[in-house]
C-alpha cells in the first residue's frame, strides 16, 4: 500500500518524465552567525501529473521550497528545473489578496494579465467562485470577508492562473472540516481534468493521505527530505476511510519522531 | 521670434521690436508711450511693437541678455550691472527717461545726521542706487557703514513694501527709498530728512533710462531712432498734461493688481519726479564712483556705455538742445 524510501532524499535516475526537479537545493537566509539554513541539499523529482504532498514541522522550510520552485527566490545552491519552461502557479500561505480589487477582480487578474477577453474572463471567474462556494461574493472587497473566505478566494485566483504546475501552501488551513472536504473533491477533480502536477503543503496528515500520490516529509533546520511515501489507495478516496487513517498514522509517527529529534 | 533672428534680419524686412518696462511710476514715459501709442506712431507700420512688462531689474537684464527683449526701460543700477557683466558688449544706453523720486525718510524725532547713530535704516537692496546714496551720504556726515549692516548706522536692505510695514510697526527708524514708497513713509508718520534732488547739481539724477541690446542697435539703428522719437513725444505729453499722464499710469498699475492706487498718492510722488530725455550721464558715473567709494562696486569703466547719436538726431530734428554722454 505504501512504500517508504530511505531517508536522505530521492535518488532516481533523471528521466523525461519529470515535471519539477530539485537537485541539491539549499537556501540560506541572511549571512554570518545569524544565517538561517532553511533548506539543505534537497533533491526531489516530481513526475508530470503527480500530486505530491509536503509535510514537516513548523518552520522546516516548506514555504521556502515552494517559493524557490515558483522562481520568486533564488536558491543559495543547487538547481531547480521545471518542465517545458512552464511557470508554476503558487497559492501563498497567506491569502495575499489585492485590497484595491474586488473578489472577482482578484480572481480575474491572472487572466487579465494573460489578456483573456472580458467576456470569457467573467464567465471563468463566476465558475471559479462557484468552485470555492463564493458565487455571491464577487463584488465584495477582501476586507469584507472572513479568514476562510479569503483563503478560498486566493485558491480560486491561483486556479485562474491555468498553469500546468500548481504549488499550494496550506490552502485549506483556515477552513472548517466540511468546506475542506468539499474542496478536496474540487481540487482532485480539477487536478484530474487538467492533468496538473501539484506540490501541496499541508499540516493535516490525513489531508495529505487523502489527496497525495506521494507524501514527502521534510526535517527541520536544516530542511532535508527525510521520508517519501507512495500512497497507493485508489481514488475516489474518503478522508475518514481506514486506509487513509492507517497511512496518516504511519506518517504521523515518523513526523513525531522528527519533531522530537529537532524540537519544533 | 528670437533675438538672434530679429537682430540679423535685413533692415528692409518686417521687424519686431520687443520693448520691456516696469509698470510703475518711474517708468511713466514707457507706460504713456505704449498706452497713448506714441511709440507705435513713430515706429510706423513696418515695425511691430511687442511690449513685455517686468517686475524687477534682474529679469529685465536676463531677458535682454538672452535675446527675449531688444530694449528695456530700467534703472541705473541694473544698467551698470548689465554693462559690467557683459564686459561692455551687450548693451547701450540710448536715452534717459526720468529723474528724481527718491528720499530719505525718518522718524520725526530725527533731525540731524548725528541722531542716526545706532539706528536701523532700510534701503531697497544692497548696492542699488538708493543704498549707495544712503551710504555715501552717511559717509559724508562721518558715519560709517558696512556691507554686512554693521558700523555706526545699521543698514537693512529690504523689499520696499516690507519697509513700509516695518516702519509702520516701528521696527526701523528710517529708509532711503524711491517713490512712491517715500511718500508712503511720510504718510505713515515719517519726515523727509533728505530729498535726493538736493544732493545733485540741478536736482537731477537718473532714475530710469532706456537700455538697448547692442546687436539690435547695430542691426536696426533706424528703429531705435524711431523708438526714441516716440519716447520724446511721450515725455512731451507727460510734461504738458501731467494730470492725464498720471491717470494713464494709475490705470496701468490698476491692471496689474486689479486696483488702481490712490490718485492723490500718485500725485504726491509725481511732484518729486522729472521726465526728461537726457540720461544725466554724470549722475550715473558719480553713482558708480560713490558705490566704489563705499566698497560696493568693483571699479568699472563706463566709457562707451552711452550711444546718444540717435537721441541727438531726434532732438536736433525737433530743434531741441542736444545732450552729452
Amino acid at each position, binding site marked *: 500500500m505504501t512504500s517508504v524510501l530511505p531517508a536522505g532524499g530521492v535518488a532516481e535516475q533523471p528521466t523525461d518524465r519529470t515535471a519539477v526537479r530539485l537537485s541539491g537545493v539549499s537556501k540560506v537566509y541572511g549571512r554570518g552567525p545569524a544565517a538561517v539554513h532553511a533548506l539543505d541539499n534537497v533533491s526531489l523529482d516530481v513526475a508530470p501529473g503527480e500530486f505530491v504532498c509536503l509535510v514537516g514541522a513548523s518552520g522546516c522550510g516548506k514555504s521556502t521550497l515552494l517559493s524557490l520552485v515558483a522562481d*520568486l527566490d533564488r536558491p543559495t545552491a543547487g538547481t531547480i528545473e521545471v518542465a517545458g519552461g512552464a511557470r508554476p*502557479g503558487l497559492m501563498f500561505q497567506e491569502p495575499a489578496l489585492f485590497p*484595491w480589487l474586488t473578489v472577482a477582480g482578484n480572481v480575474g487578474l491572472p487572466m487579465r*494579465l494573460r489578456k483573456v477577453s472580458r467576456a470569457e474572463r467573467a464567465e471563468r471567474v463566476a465558475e471559479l467562485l462557484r468552485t470555492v462556494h463564493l458565487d455571491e461574493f464577487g463584488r465584495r472587497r477582501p476586507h469584507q470577508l472572513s479568514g476562510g473566505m479569503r483563503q478560498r478566494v486566493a485558491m480560486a485566483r491561483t486556479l485562474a492562473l491555468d498553469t500546468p504546475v500548481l504549488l499550494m501552501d496550506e490552502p485549506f488551513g483556515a477552513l472548517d472540516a466540511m468546506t475542506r472536504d468539499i474542496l478536496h473533491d474540487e481540487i482532485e477533480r480539477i487536478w484530474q481534468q487538467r492533468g496538473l502536477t501539484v506540490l501541496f503543503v499541508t499540516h493535516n496528515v490525513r489531508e495529505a493521505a487523502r489527496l497525495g500520490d506521494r507524501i514527502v516529509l521534510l526535517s527541520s533546520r536544516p530542511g532535508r527530505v527525510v521520508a517519501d511515501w507512495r500512497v497507493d489507495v485508489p481514488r475516489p478516496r474518503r478522508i475518514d476511510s481506514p486506509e487513509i487513517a492507517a497511512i496518516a498514522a504511519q506518517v504521523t509517527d515518523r513526523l513525531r519522531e522528527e519533531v522530537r529529534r529537532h524540537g519544533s | 521670434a528670437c533675438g538672434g533672428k530679429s537682430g540679423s534680419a535685413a533692415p528692409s524686412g518686417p521687424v519686431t521690436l520687443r520693448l520691456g518696462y516696469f509698470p510703475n511710476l518711474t517708468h511713466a514715459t514707457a507706460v504713456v508711450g505704449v498706452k497713448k501709442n506714441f511709440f507705435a506712431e513713430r515706429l510706423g507700420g513696418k515695425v511691430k511693437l511687442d*511690449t513685455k*512688462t517686468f517686475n524687477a531689474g534682474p529679469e529685465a537684464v536676463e531677458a535682454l541678455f538672452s535675446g527675449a527683449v531688444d530694449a528695456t526701460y530700467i534703472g541705473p543700477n541694473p544698467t551698470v550691472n548689465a554693462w559690467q557683466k557683459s564686459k561692455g558688449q551687450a548693451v547701450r544706453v540710448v536715452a534717459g527717461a526720468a529723474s528724481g523720486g527718491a528720499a530719505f525718510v525718518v522718524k520725526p524725532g530725527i533731525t540731524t545726521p548725528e541722531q542716526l547713530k545706532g539706528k536701523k535704516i532700510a534701503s531697497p537692496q544692497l548696492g542699488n542706487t538708493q543704498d549707495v546714496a544712503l551710504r555715501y551720504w552717511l559717509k559724508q556726515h562721518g558715519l560709517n557703514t558696512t556691507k554686512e549692516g554693521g558700523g555706526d548706522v545699521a543698514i537693512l536692505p529690504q523689499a520696499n513694501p516690507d519697509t513700509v*510695514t516695518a516702519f509702520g*510697526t516701528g521696527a526701523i527708524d528710517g529708509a532711503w527709498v524711491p517713490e512712491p514708497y517715500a511718500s508712503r513713509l511720510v504718510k505713515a508718520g515719517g519726515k523727509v530728512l533728505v530729498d535726493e534732488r538736493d544732493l545733485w547739481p540741478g536736482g537731477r539724477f537718473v532714475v530710469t533710462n532706456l537700455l538697448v541690446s547692442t546687436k539690435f542697435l547695430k542691426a536696426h539703428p533706424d528703429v531705435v531712432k524711431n523708438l526714441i522719437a516716440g519716447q520724446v513725444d511721450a515725455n512731451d505729453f507727460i510734461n504738458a498734461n501731467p494730470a492725464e499722464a498720471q491717470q494713464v499710469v494709475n490705470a496701468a498699475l490698476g*491692471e496689474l*493688481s486689479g486696483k488702481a492706487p490712490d490718485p492723490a498718492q500718485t500725485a504726491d510722488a509725481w511732484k518729486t519726479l522729472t521726465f526728461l530725455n537726457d540720461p544725466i550721464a554724470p549722475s550715473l558715473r558719480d553713482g558708480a564712483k560713490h558705490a566704489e567709494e563705499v566698497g560696493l562696486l568693483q571699479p568699472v569703466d563706463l566709457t562707451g556705455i552711452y550711444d546718444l547719436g540717435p537721441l541727438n538726431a531726434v532732438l536736433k530734428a525737433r530743434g531741441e538742445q542736444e545732450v552729452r554722454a
Partner: protein
Amino acid sequence: MGADRTIAGLDALDLAATASGESRLAKVWASAWPKLLALAFVLGVWQVVYWSGWREPWVLPAPQEVFADLARAVTTADFWRAIATTLRRGLVGFVLAAAIGLVLGVAVARVRPLRAALGSAITALQTMPSIAWFPLAILLFQISENAILFVVVLGAAPSIANGVISGVDYVPPLLLRAGRNFGARGLSLYRYVVAPASLPAIVSGLKQGWAFAWRSLLAGELLVIIAQRPALGVRLQGLREQNDAAGVISTMIVIFVIGVLADAVFSSADRRLRRAWGLDQA
C-alpha cells in the same frame, strides 16, 4: 458585572462616526459646524485685535474692510480673469509635473543605478527656490507662458516623484511576489500591482506636488508679466507693492479658498481609496 466600557476622550471621538445610521443632514452638519466654528474663531480674534488698536488700520485692516475689498473685487472681470489664468497655468503645470514626476518616480524607484544617480538629486531639486530657475527659464523659453510652466514643473515634479518613490518602496513584498507569480513582469507589474498598491502614497505626493506647483506658480508669474493677462501672482505682488494690506489679505483669502477646493479634490480621492481598501473603519 460592571463591564469596562468606558472609552477615553480621543477614542470616543474616533468612534463617534463609526456609529452608523446618521441622517444625511446630520452628516453635513457634522462636517460644517467645525468649519464654521473655526472661521468664527479666526474672525473673532482678528476683530478683537483690530479693536484693541494694536496696529494702525493701514497695517492691519479690519475684517469688514477686507471683505468689502473682496466684494468689490469679485464684481470686476479682471478678478475672474486673473483666477482663470492662474488656475489654467496651475492645472497645466501640475498635469505636466505629474506626468514627469510619475515616470521619474517609477524609474528611480525600481532601477537601481538610476536611483543611485538621481535619488538624492530629486530632493535637492525640490529644495531649489524658484527664483534660482528664473534665468534658465528665460534663457530656454524667452518671455512666454512656457517659462512660467518650466518653473512650475521644476517646482512640483520632484515632489511628486518623491511621493511615488516612497509609495513604491513600501509596496508589501507579498503583493509583489503574488503579482510576479501571476505573470506580471516589467510594465504590467507596475500597472496591476505597484501602481495601485502605492496609490495612497502617490495621492499624498500629488497633494504635496500641487502645493509646490501653486507656490512656484505664484512666484513664477512675476517672472514674466504677460500683457493683458491678469494673474493672481501678479495681483498679489501688485497689491503688496501698493502696501494695500486689505487687498493683500483679500487675495490671500482667494488663494486660501482655491487651496481648500484643491484639497477637497485630493481628499475625496483619498477617502474613496480608503473606503475601497477597508481602511476607514478601524
